[in-house]
């Protein structure tokens, strides 16, 4: 059995994750959730100086916002849309017959006006734009959401529904770049505090198809995305636990976000993959949290 399957098996065996029969769709135990909550709180303590505005969205967004965001240009294969039954009694009977016979019953399902959130910051940009021009110093937001990506995998670090904590900055290019610089530094301090080995490297998003080849290369060339990587499944393919993204004027242009001077606003975000960080902690410090090194326990739980 390969090492990837065995980490997932151990997580199932200890009950930290709960198997559902679908790859990347798992239940979480109380202990697992506590680790996530403690790390989330640590991020809040580290980021408190920003006085960021806290917003929380459910793990879905309006389809109209999703369409305008441009996500379909880059990642059509990862999106999850919400469909629903819209028929009458007759259609209902036909549906139940299909289910009973084991036939496909989904053909009549119609797309709703809701799409699953692909990244925690996607519902934010139209909300910023709606408020009008940014204040002089720009804005900073604090987000956390379950996100969906259609990429079934046997690696526990690649889940289809997972939580992403984010800080998002919008303002002038200088404000936004300074924010990303600062978080690349703070992110490393954060991961060192919880005793994990890491590297930071330039990265690209998994852009789809032929067009995606060039988008990957230019994203790297312009160093628009960095990742903080921790070995979890293997040393050779470490897992991106944090990402530092500079979108330039992409969302500013898409949504019409303006700086105080009326220029197109730039945006950047730092994302914390909460399940991935938790899995890295279990992988490096063991499956029993009471046995974790004292400095790590203190960073997460304080001196109880």
């Amino acid at each position, binding site marked *: 059995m390969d090492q990837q399957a065995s980490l997932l098996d151990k997580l199932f065996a200890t009950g930290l994750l709960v198997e559902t029969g679908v790859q990347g769709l798992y239940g979480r135990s109380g202990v697992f959730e506590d680790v996530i909550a403690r790390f989330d709180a640590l991020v809040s303590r580290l980021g408190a100086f920003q006085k960021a505005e806290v917003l929380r969205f459910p793990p879905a967004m309006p389809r109209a916002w999703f369409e305008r965001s441009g996500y379909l*240009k880059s990642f059509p294969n990862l999106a999850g849309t919400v469909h629903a039954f819209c028929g009458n009694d007759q259609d209902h009977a036909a549906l139940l017959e299909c289910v009973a016979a084991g036939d496909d019953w989904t053909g009549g399902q119609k797309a709703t006006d809701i799409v699953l959130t692909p990244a925690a910051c996607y519902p934010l940009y139209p909300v910023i734009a709606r408020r009008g021009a940014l204040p002089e110093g720009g804005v900073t937001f604090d987000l956390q959401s379950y996100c969906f990506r259609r990429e079934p995998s046997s690696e526990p670090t690649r889940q289809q529904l997972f939580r992403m904590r984010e800080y998002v900055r919008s303002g002038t290019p200088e404000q936004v770049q300074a924010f990303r610089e600062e978080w690349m530094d703070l992110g490393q301090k954060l991961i060192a505090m919880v005793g994990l080995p890491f590297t930071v490297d330039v990265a690209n998003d998994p852009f789809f198809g*032929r*067009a995606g*080849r*060039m*988008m990957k*290369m*230019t994203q790297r*060339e312009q160093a628009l995305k960095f990742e903080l990587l921790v070995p979890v499944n293997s040393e050779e393919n470490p897992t991106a636990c944090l990402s530092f993204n500079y979108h330039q004027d992409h969302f500013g242009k898409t949504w019409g976000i303006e700086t105080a001077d009326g220029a197109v606003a730039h945006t950047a975000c730092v994302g914390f993959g909460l399940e991935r960080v938790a899995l890295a902690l279990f992988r490096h410090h063991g499956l029993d949290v009471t046995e974790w090194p004292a400095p790590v326990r203190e960073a997460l739980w304080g001196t109880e």
Partner: protein
Amino acid sequence: MTADIRELISKHGNLSVDVATLADEADLYAAGLSSFASVQLMLSIEDAFDIEFPDRMLNRRSFASIAAIQACVDELTADRKAA
């Protein structure tokens, strides 16, 4: 001949100026070529010349000017002309 490339740029480049006014060496990004438009341009060039850009050419430099694009196309079709 840069005529074919100029036509593809006017179709897919979404520039803020008329392609006819641009010199072969002019900076296309300064003329308004967005990263999304440069990807569409790349795909249209692949189709028009029946070539595939290798990874080493998939960068901003390759699409920075009409001359730069022509140089890439020439290199990728060189063996065809020789044959």
